[in-house]
């Protein structure tokens, strides 16, 4: 909402500067988004100090001066003003600047003397009509300071105020003035209108009707009373449409609106001044001089004021004449019945439309106007008659004509109900005691009627325009904001610890994040949208048609992020994310799981002069990362990686349950890029079923058990030396390392301490299809040194078991 400071002052005469009013409203009412002087046309005029002054050699009234404009160079300036004096500061227009009247200041010669700029008078700056020479400034400001910072309040200012949906009463200058009045304690004024023209209009009799009224040959009929409870129509005959007077044009422009003609400007004055939308119809263009408010019929169209022909959506309320629609109710009028230069007779519409119907029209027709914006939020229905009166009076004042009829169809708004307010509750909720007298004073200043029923019971009846004050807490909010939040004590008070424990998933997330950062991966937070339809979860209104689905896999997201990096020639991409994925479910909401995914691509280590070309990540890096990640995620589970069919490499199991996968990540990548390997684990479900039905509490026992992290159990540090041997085994093609390991462990017995693969070899000197794998075995007895003979015996047992069971031989 753009508010003109001068217009605001016409409703609440105060002596504060615009910035002070802006701060006052910002502190107590509504956020100030900006403040702009309407005199930006003199923003470039600066303070100039006349350092020297001498008479012009070729003139008896001109002076030659040297002016300091803060630029560091003294400028020669010729001045014609009799009052120019050395040592005095004046407004100074530099060369290249433009004066408010459009005069461009340029370097020029005046009677043979060069002049670089101009010292200015009040009139030249349009500050006043006086022209007693140039304007002497009494200021300490340095030369070069913009004049607007020195002159104090010059002209009008626009306050840009962010009115939120709960305060539609602030969507007008009078509404904002009410707040200023309440905050400063200044009485409200009636604005620009003369009382006389208003009284003349008020003398015209009113014709009432519940749904229908006719007078002066004009008929108003409400068919759709649900969306239009009340419709006031005023008939003005004999107007002369033409330009608005200067004061009216300036008012509208000061509030960011544009002058059109005197009649339309008058309606906009009421809209921006009082907050009531008014529409003026050319009465002669309304068939049978009739207004009908009804629901639209199939296929009806209307050419609206903006010139667009629109098919009116079903369910929309329209204003019609006897034959066809002439306006979209509460949104925009039609072009055929608009006021033109030829118009002489008017029908003014001052109506009340239900917010939700206007909102519907605005949405389905995709058309938002100043009127619809206010109707959607709620217009003060009790103020309609006054707004109608003021609008008609203003039109007769600026466009002539006579009000010949006033029609009032429908039902006036119900008077506001009252709210019970307990001063004890005010104190309890605000935390500081507030005296009852102060409560009463604040509420009355805001226009509430307050009856003191008892010591702890006030009956508060809000004014008609405060539709947001419905229950006790609404009124309490008024008290704290009017007193000011600065008044609230800044005092930390005792509290009880809560019953909610940390969500276990949060603790898991922290553990996996720490692990992955420690392993050199970067955490990412990309968007969860994808073109991949695996989840089956399609958005109804996606942001981008090529990514309408929610993801079912984080590796899918990371693959796209890796492509992004590869496109930028970055080949070392180690990324991870902890985030949500979405899967089909039987319920209303998708099954939501929290996953962690990590991806390895590129060099295993940074290059070093000892290793200029480090190896790239391979499946074995992913395997070890997956095991460590699963251990961090499921600290009390036994973790295993089970070989899986392509395209997977392994499935990750925790306590035998599949919790994730390890795979090569498929993506579009340039030839120079290495293969990418990924791990994705399901950390658990994020339940989305309703906790309890609306309005009820589940009364659950305390939930949220953190994952069990088993304590380490001490194993005695060995006192006896270890002993062992290596086995270089030749494996037939079908024998897997795990098969060999089973036999080795079984036959080695419990003294086996370490079993490690240290080498794999294929090729020359080996039969086709076979490979050699080297195992290192280490044994230890807790109480004595193992003898060579024992080890040899064990070796013999192992070798014969391997030969017998797997056809594995010792490499010769």
């Amino acid at each position, binding site marked *: 909402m753009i508010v003109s400071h001068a217009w605001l002052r016409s409703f609440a005469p105060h002596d504060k500067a615009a910035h002070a009013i802006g701060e006052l409203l910002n502190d107590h009412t509504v956020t100030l988004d900006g403040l702009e002087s309407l005199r930006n046309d003199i923003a470039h005029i600066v303070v100039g100090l006349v350092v020297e002054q001498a008479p012009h050699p070729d003139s008896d009234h001109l002076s030659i001066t040297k002016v300091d404009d803060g630029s560091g160079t003294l400028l020669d300036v010729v001045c014609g003003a009799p009052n120019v004096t050395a040592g005095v500061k004046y407004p100074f227009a530099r060369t290249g600047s433009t004066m408010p009247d459009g005069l461009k200041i340029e370097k020029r010669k005046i009677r043979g003397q060069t002049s670089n700029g101009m010292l200015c008078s009040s009139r030249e700056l349009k500050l006043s009509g006086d022209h007693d020479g140039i304007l002497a400034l009494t200021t300490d400001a340095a030369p070069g300071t913009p004049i607007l910072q020195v002159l104090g309040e010059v002209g009008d200012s626009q306050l840009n105020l962010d009115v939120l949906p709960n305060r539609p009463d602030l969507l007008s200058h009078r509404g904002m003035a009410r707040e200023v009045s309440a905050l400063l304690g200044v009485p409200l004024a009636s604005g620009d209108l003369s009382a006389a023209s208003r009284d003349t209009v008020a003398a015209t009799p009113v014709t009432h009707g519940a749904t229908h009224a006719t007078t002066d040959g004009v008929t108003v009929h409400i068919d759709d009373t649900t969306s239009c409870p009340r419709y006031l129509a005023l008939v003005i005959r004999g107007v002369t449409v033409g330009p608005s007077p200067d004061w009216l044009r300036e008012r509208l422009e000061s509030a960011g609106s544009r002058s059109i003609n005197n009649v339309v400007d008058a309606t906009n004055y009421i809209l921006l001044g009082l907050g009531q939308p008014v529409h003026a119809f050319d009465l002669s263009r309304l068939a049978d001089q009739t207004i009908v408010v009804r629901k639209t019929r199939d296929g009806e169209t209307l050419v609206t004021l903006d010139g667009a022909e629109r098919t009116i959506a079903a369910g929309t309320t329209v204003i019609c004449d006897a034959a066809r629609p002439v306006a979209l109710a509460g949104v925009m009028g039609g072009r055929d019945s608009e006021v033109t230069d030829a118009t002489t007779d008017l029908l003014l519409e001052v109506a009340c439309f239900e917010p939700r119907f206007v909102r519907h029209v605005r949405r389905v027709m995709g058309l938002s106007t100043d009127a619809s914006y206010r109707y959607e939020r709620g217009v003060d229905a009790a103020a309609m008659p006054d707004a109608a009166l003021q609008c008609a009076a203003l039109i007769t004042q600026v466009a002539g004509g006579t009000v010949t009829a006033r029609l009032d169809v429908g039902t006036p708004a119900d008077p506001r109900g009252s709210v019970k307010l307990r001063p004890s509750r005010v104190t309890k909720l605000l935390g500081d005691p507030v005296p009852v007298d102060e409560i009463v004073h604040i509420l009355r200043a805001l226009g509430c009627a307050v009856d003191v029923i008892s010591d702890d019971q006030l009956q508060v009846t809000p004014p008609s325009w405060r539709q947001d004050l419905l229950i006790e807490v609404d009124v309490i909010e008024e008290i704290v904001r009017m007193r000011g939040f600065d008044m609230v*004590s800044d005092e930390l008070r005792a509290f009880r610890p809560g019953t909610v424990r940390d969500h276990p998933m949060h603790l898991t997330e922290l553990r996996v994040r720490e692990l992955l950062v420690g392993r050199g991966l*970067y955490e990412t937070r990309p968007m969860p949208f994808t073109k991949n339809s695996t989840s089956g979860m399609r958005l109804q209104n996606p942001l981008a048609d090529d990514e309408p689905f929610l993801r079912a896999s984080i590796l899918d997201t990371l693959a796209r992020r890796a492509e992004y990096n590869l496109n930028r020639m970055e080949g070392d991409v180690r990324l991870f994310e902890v985030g949500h994925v979405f899967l089909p479910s039987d319920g209303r909401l998708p099954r939501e799981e929290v996953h962690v995914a990590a991806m390895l691509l590129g060099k295993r280590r940074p290059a070093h002069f000892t290793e200029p070309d480090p190896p790239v990540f391979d499946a074995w890096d992913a395997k070890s990362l997956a095991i460590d990640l699963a251990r961090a995620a499921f600290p009390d589970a036994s973790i295993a990686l089970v070989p899986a069919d392509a395209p997977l490499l392994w499935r990750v199991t925790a306590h035998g349950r599949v919790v994730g996968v390890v795979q090569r990540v498929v993506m579009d990548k340039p030839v120079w890029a290495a293969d990418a390997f990924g791990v994705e684990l399901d950390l658990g479900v994020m339940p989305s079923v309703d906790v309890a039905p609306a309005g009820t509490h589940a009364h659950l026992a305390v*939930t949220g058990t953190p994952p069990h992290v088993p304590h380490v159990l001490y194993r005695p540090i060995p006192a006896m030396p270890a002993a062992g041997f290596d086995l270089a085994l030749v494996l037939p093609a079908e024998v897997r390392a795990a098969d060999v390991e089973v036999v080795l462990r079984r036959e080695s017995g419990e003294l086996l301490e370490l079993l490690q693969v240290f080498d794999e070899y294929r090729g020359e000197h080996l039969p086709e299809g076979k490979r050699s794998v080297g195992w290192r075995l280490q044994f230890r007895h807790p109480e004595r040194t193992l003898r060579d003979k024992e080890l040899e015996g064990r070796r013999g047992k192992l070798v014969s078991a391997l030969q017998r069971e797997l056809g594995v031989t010792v490499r010769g």
Partner: protein
Amino acid sequence: MTTLAEFLTRADAIARDGTALIRAAVTRDALDHARVGLLGRKQGQLTSLMAMLGSLPAEDRRAAGAAVNATKQTLELTLTSAEAALAPAPDASRPDDLTMPGRDAWKGAVHPVSLVIDEISGIFRELGFTIALGPEAETEWYNFGALNFPPDHPAMEAHDTLYLSDDTLLRTHTSPVQVRTLQSHTPPIRILCPGNVYRRDFFDATHAPSFMQIEGLCIDEGVSFVDLKATLSEFVRRFYSDAARVRLRPSFFPFVEPGAEMDVEVDLNDGKGTRWVEILGCGMVHPNVLDAAGIDSEKYSGWAFGMGPARIAMSRHKLPDIRLLYDSDVRFLEQFAQ
């Protein structure tokens, strides 16, 4: 002619005096001088003694040779240890050029938005808050209805919503977690809810369709606006500085009343001096919200706040474009490596 006894006495003397001589040498020169004096090929004392070996009777030569060897060994050992003490021998594991770079491992990084969330959470943990989480896909009731959004109200315009179906959606704020917690736990409740939220905002330099939010909720008997102001002011002092000034401005969110926004006065070091910057929205929890969750709004009261860690990350790291936080460009992420 020398006797064996004389020979052995002489060897002993060389060993004893030589050892003392070597031990007394504190410079390399002195040590070299000692070595030459004792073992030198021409005039070394032991060399001279060895030359006399041939003049001993044949049966004594073996014992004399052994004595010479023992003496030689003693002197050499003493010399070696004395040399080591003077300047340790060059070590193969010691690089010649110590200015060459060390061998790096890859360094990981926590996302800048997570860093902000961690810091905020850390402060509120000090003030007794715990972490609550919830789903990102929600019903309209948890996202709007339970939070006192009237159906079809302009307040919902600010929450341009991504819908999954007519009554399910991607949450537009983390407030549904507040409702879920209110329904499942009995006050006192002091929770923080960090999480992803979604708005139908197109990507540009300052807007993203999905972003992190962190909300807090405090409910108990007798909780007042003073607690709200004091706790959030204390948070600001711990997060920014003890000198940081804050102010509250009236605002509107359907789920709180009174509602406010908190500004903090900050210097962004851009040469424009200090200014007020909005950091969070807050207010007393609306009684309709408590009632919707089955909590007696006469008995219990409380306050809530919400803030956007991405905005703070952008401001503190001077990020010109919010998309940097989503693109996952490694050249950006590596700047936050630890």
